[in-house]
């Protein structure tokens, strides 16, 4: 990690400042608390993801420490879920990493969108805030920042409040899932939670005809590409799907002209 640090004495003086100042004025501590509070309703919706990762991870033969290690190192539910069947099928390291890369590509969009807000931060802060970047943290902070309610120095603290609350909830949910998976091992088909969570994610991702075309071409390819060697099926189907979306977009645009 980088060199910038959150110094305890700074936090202490920040907290002091928050107590002395009017509650309306935002200070680092107040911004942090405001962020953490704003995300509470979302945390409840997050729990299924952590549980949905923990349970099948154990069902597919990962140990508790491996499942938790993945949640800490990767900290991206969809990518972790996508990796489980590959890990249990004994796919190579390259295939697993490439798959995680594909699933997490969208994070670059969030990174680009948040970058102007974090432009002046020291490198350590950039590292910390980047590590904590998730779909939910992005959605909660960008709307807040764009509304222009937060002053520049407090943005990092607001974001940290949001993102850290998500991190803690996700790790706790992973642990809950691990215990659930160990308890229900075998009989309950809990590994089925895995496709279910992807179904819940993909349906809202299909917003129009072009994203529908992407899903359809990816799906059809996936049926036939599953037999490809080295577990390359997922990557092949995803690439064909993206291509399908781009082609559909071109066809529709040409039809308008």
């Amino acid at each position, binding site marked *: 990690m980088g060199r910038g640090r959150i110094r305890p004495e700074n936090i202490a003086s920040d907290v002091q400042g928050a107590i002395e100042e009017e509650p309306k004025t935002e200070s680092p501590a107040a911004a942090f608390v405001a962020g953490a509070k704003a995300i509470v309703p979302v945390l409840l919706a997050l729990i299924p993801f952590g549980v949905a990762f923990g349970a099948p991870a154990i069902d597919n033969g990962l140990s508790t420490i491996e499942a938790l290690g*993945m949640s800490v190192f990767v900290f991206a539910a969809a*990518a972790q879920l996508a990796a489980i*069947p590959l890990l249990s099928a004994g796919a190579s390291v390259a295939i697993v990493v490439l798959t*995680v890369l594909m699933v997490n590509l969208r994070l670059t969009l*969030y990174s680009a969108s948040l970058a102007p807000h*974090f432009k002046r931060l020291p490198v350590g802060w950039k*590292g910390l805030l980047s590590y904590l970047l998730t779909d939910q943290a992005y959605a909660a902070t960008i709307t807040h920042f764009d509304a222009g309610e937060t002053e520049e120095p407090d943005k990092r603290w607001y974001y940290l409040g949001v993102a850290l609350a998500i991190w803690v909830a996700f790790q706790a949910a992973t642990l809950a899932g691990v215990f659930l998976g160990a308890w229900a091992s075998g009989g309950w088909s809990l590994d089925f939670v895995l496709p*279910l969570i992807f179904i*819940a994610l993909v349906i809202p991702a299909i917003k129009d005809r072009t994203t529908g075309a992407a899903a359809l071409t990816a799906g059809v390819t996936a049926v036939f590409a599953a037999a490809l060697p080295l577990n390359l099926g997922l990557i092949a189907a995803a690439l064909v799907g993206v291509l399908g979306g781009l082609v559909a977009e071109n066809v529709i645009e040409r039809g308008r002209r």
Partner: protein
Amino acid sequence: MSTLALWLSIGGAGVVTFALRLSFIALLGRMEIPPFLGRALRFVPAAVLTAVVIPLLFYENGTLEVSLGNERLLAGLAAALIAWRTRSVLFTLVGGMAALWTLQAIGLGP
């Protein structure tokens, strides 16, 4: 998979994910996503998520299985319907599991 390979996968996945998150934040917000890449990225979620889920529904023990006997495929279709109507992760999970357990109990297949 060996323990070493597993941890290498986890570590590699962690590094790659961190790099994606850091990418534009580290570039000081001066660089924008090239237009073509931006267009392609729009289709990534729908394509990747479908690519993950389809084999899990259509294949049983490594063989393609499209029949009433494939309970996971049927329960998956039911879950897709629930996801579409409710947009709720929780309802999709609960409804999908209930559908699977029901189908397993009655057994439509031969």
